[in-house]
């Protein structure tokens, strides 16, 4: 009877530790997933996860992060403890710098003060619920980008308004296609083809004067600038796998944009439009 009691106590103790470990695991994984989805670099994600785990006094932490998944192993360090490993598949990403900023603050606060794991989980949940700016504001932002780029590339005032319209329409289309969960290539292709067709239409009716500046302005929104630079940075930092996968993402987006523009122009000339 006494023996049983001791046994159950030991068992209880092990379970308690495991629960603590599991919570740390979930916390670290969620933080890492959020950062990865919001467009952070690989080394920063790995660094944050390691710091959160070390702050919870877990001696053995090993992280392997790629843009499509995070692998995390934890060990209590004693002889008879089990090792915990989690795999988190990451699907889809949208750049959200507010989230990166908030998680940055959170990890600094979590490691420097003795914030409990439960309140940490609550904070992470709050951060993951942050919504982007309202749709109309985002469309206005996209229109700003394309219209001012049209001016940078020697467009006239007329082209400013044409690019404003084309940018707003193509961004609205991309939001709509996002809702339908179409893939990367189809989205880039459709949006750029639509932007080019709008530009060609405005140009042929005489509303726009410089076709190139309107098209360049409106495809600027969809360029994979972040994927491109992060790919090179990851590769040079030694994360070859992530670098390759981001690089392929960037290449696919570039090809989709170029083919969208190309197909739209070809179609326009085939249908007898002037260009």
């Amino acid at each position, binding site marked *: 009877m006494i023996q049983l009691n001791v046994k159950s106590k030991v068992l209880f103790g092990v379970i308690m530790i495991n629960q603590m470990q599991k919570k740390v695991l979930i916390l670290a994984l969620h933080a890492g997933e959020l950062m990865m989805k919001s467009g952070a670099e690989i080394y920063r994600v790995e660094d944050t996860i390691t710091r959160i785990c070390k702050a919870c006094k877990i001696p053995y932490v090993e992280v392997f992060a790629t843009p499509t998944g995070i692998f995390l192993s934890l060990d209590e360090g004693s002889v008879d403890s089990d090792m915990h490993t989690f795999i988190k598949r990451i699907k889809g990403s949208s750049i959200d*710098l507010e989230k990166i900023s908030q998680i*940055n603050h959170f990890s600094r606060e979590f490691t420097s003060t003795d914030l409990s794991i439960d309140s940490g989980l609550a904070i992470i949940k709050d951060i993951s619920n942050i919504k982007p700016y309202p749709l109309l504001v985002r469309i206005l932002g996209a229109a700003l980008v394309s219209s001012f780029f049209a001016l940078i590339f020697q467009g006239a005032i007329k082209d400013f308004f044409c690019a404003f319209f084309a940018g707003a329409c193509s961004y609205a289309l991309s939001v709509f296609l996002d809702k339908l969960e179409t893939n990367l290539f189809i989205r880039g292709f459709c949006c750029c083809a639509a932007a080019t067709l709008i530009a060609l239409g405005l140009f042929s009716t005489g509303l726009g004067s410089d076709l190139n500046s309107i098209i360049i302005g409106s495809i*600027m929104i969809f360029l994979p600038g972040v994927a491109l630079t992060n790919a090179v940075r990851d590769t040079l930092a030694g994360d070859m796998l992530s670098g390759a996968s981001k690089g392929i993402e960037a290449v696919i987006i570039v090809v989709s944009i*170029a083919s969208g523009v190309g197909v739209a122009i070809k179609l326009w000339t085939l249908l007898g439009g002037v260009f």
Partner: protein
Amino acid sequence: MIWAFIYAFCSTVGFSILFHVPKKHIATAGFVGALGWLTYTYFIVSGSGSVLACFAGSCIVAIISDVFSRAFKDAATIFIIPGILPLVPGANMYYTMLAILEGNVTETASIGTETLLMAGSIAVALLVVASISKLLSLTGRKLLTYLK
């Protein structure tokens, strides 16, 4: 020059809205992007190649972002991502596409290579500045502890 600054400022603000930069940092991010573009146009006007101009512009973006990230105690990425986007060679990509459509292989190869080099130079510039700033802050900290 002043007009280039204003145009680049406005378009970087647009990118900041798309990427959900925190509200208090939107104007700062716009300033960073405009400064990077100004450097780029200055180098282009003074006659250097577009790859070098891109490199210089990205260096400026990275340095200013680093300074701001220390001043505001926030991640440098918030300023870097919208800041470099005006420098990404979108126009060159478009011209490469036009050359492909015209069947002009020589033109395609020459503009395409330049586009790739420009994109690479942005990434390398960010990396160089990040490494140097890390090195400086590490030696500075070591020096401080040594002096104490």
